[in-house]
């Protein structure tokens, strides 16, 4: 009898260190399935962030580089520029990408670097123990906003996908979620699409994935999914913000000196 479901080749048979209810394992799997389906494992280089996924290379089986906090897009740029034939992806959390690494992601996206970013947004710092992130929701309690995020002091959460979609250059910007089967199926299609665009050498691609962090949110996994649907999704709406198809026609050409 043929197997219909099995561990992807690009994934190690290992127990993850992630907490119960964490969605990193699911997202890792989506990336590994994509690597398998496109048959690119032997020419893929992943870049692990500083954050809970710092040891993503213990689970995803391909060449990897380990980034300093926030710098993954600069490293991906370095690799992709000198080896355009490699498939390069960064895997970053919201503290890594939206806080310390905001400069690097904006400029890499704006240059149209042809790598793929998987941006996992769970509205909090995970590995350091639940501090406030730029994506933390108003009034959300964290260890550094014990009375809730005060927007009059630190502003409203940053919508990264929308922010990057204002740039003219980047090709594929989408927001998905990993908080239930119907979302995960769509997220898988988006991740595969992003890698496909890279394979065709077409454009920069970023897939934001709205996720949960039950441990640092102080919830059960079930409660965390409900909270993500009720609080995060209305503020972080899902769907494509930009695709290569709707790009060329809108911009008028600029006058050169």
């Amino acid at each position, binding site marked *: 009898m043929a197997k219909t479901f099995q561990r992807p080749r690009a994934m190690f048979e290992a127990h993850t260190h992630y907490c119960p209810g964490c969605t990193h394992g699911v997202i890792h799997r989506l990336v590994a399935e994509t690597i398998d389906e496109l048959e690119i494992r032997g020419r*893929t280089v992943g870049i692990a962030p500083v954050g809970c996924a710092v040891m993503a290379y213990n689970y995803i089986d391909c060449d*990897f580089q380990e980034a300093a906090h926030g710098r993954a897009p600069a490293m991906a740029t370095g*690799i992709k520029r000198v080896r355009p034939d490699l498939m390069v992806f960064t895997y970053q959390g919201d503290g890594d990408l939206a806080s310390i690494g905001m400069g690097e992601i904006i400029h890499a996206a704006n240059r149209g670097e042809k790598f793929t970013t998987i941006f996992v947004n769970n509205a909090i710092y995970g590995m350091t123990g639940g501090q406030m992130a730029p994506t933390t929701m108003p009034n959300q309690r964290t260890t550094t906003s014990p009375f809730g995020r005060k927007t009059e002091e630190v502003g409203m959460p940053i919508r990264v996908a929308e922010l990057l979609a204002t740039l003219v250059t980047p090709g594929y910007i989408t927001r998905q979620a990993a908080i239930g089967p119907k979302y995960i199926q769509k997220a898988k299609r988006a991740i595969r699409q992003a890698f496909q665009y890279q394979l065709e050498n077409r454009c920069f691609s970023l897939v934001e994935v709205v996720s949960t962090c039950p441990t640092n949110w102080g919830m059960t996994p079930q409660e965390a999914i409900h909270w993500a649907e009720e609080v995060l999704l209305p503020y972080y709406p899902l769907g494509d913000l930009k695709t290569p198809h709707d790009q060329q026609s809108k911009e008028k050409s600029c006058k050169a000196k």
Partner: protein
Amino acid sequence: MSKVLMKGNEAIAEAAIRAGCLNYFAYPITPQSEVAEYLSWRMSEVDGVFLQGESEVAVGYMIFGAAGAGVRVFTTSSSPGISLMSEAISYLCGAQLPAVFVNIMRGGPGLGGILPSQADYFQATKGIGHGDCRLLVMAPASVQEVVEMVMTAFPLAEKYRNPVMILGDGLIGQMMEPVEFPDHLKSEPTNKDAWASNGIDFRKGSKRNLVRSLFLDPEKLNDNNLELRAKYERMKREEVRFEAYNTQGEYSVLIVSYGTMSRVCKTAIETLKAEGIEVGLIRPQTLFPYPEIAVREAARKSSCRAVLCIEMSMGQMVEDVERCVQGARPVQWYGKCGGDVPTPEEIIDLVKRTLSPM
């Protein structure tokens, strides 16, 4: 190839290409922006990679990514920019990746100035980044020498799988001198398949490569640091370079000086010689590893009464000179750090005052 007249910064750029380094990432900063300007058109002639990054921080990690992918790569910057790259340099040391950094030093601290300086000595030789990391640091004194050092830097970086820094003062980048380029070198790290994340399909075997500097297990981190230490100790045994000038005969004063400053010292030494005062010079060409034995032995020559360390900083290398002389002779520092280079007259006067009875 015959001699050509070139500005130091452009010669650095051309030397890297001739060393087979076809990958350059940089951010503009005075007084070395000509390197980027030159390579912005020159790299396309040789099918190389040129990219102006958004900051020195990002450039440091573009270097990391490219080095990790197993290619020759370099950047150039000046003091404040090197401070921003120092985080990446620490990561490069930790992950054992080869790359070349050129620092054309300007005055500091802070924004300081844009004129020549040697005030990044401590940073380059002792405190380039967090953790137990070291750079192999070379200090050129002419345009010809910076070309030769750039060309030797790449194979050395690959031999040690560690970043190498060329530490030149602003004059090295800004002055024009005749220069002759050595032959081309091979263009890729020959040992890269053992460590580069350059794609499993592109190597023999099926082992994947991880480029990393995180070792949460204390024993493994200690092992990594021991491995790094062994490399730095090997550098001390194998890579020390220095020039000894006027040290064959007797001399009553020893000067220790490097870079452009050492050339001014040579002029002073020749003038003093004509007056019958003999002065020796040790010019370190590598600042790490430091020519410890050469400085110690030259200082202990029986005719030598004092050691002068002359540098364009407020007294940095003098600490290494004191360490080497070990109290055998009095060691005195002299220097300036505003952008003016001490003149031969100042040095002649200093030597005479040193020798005059109290």
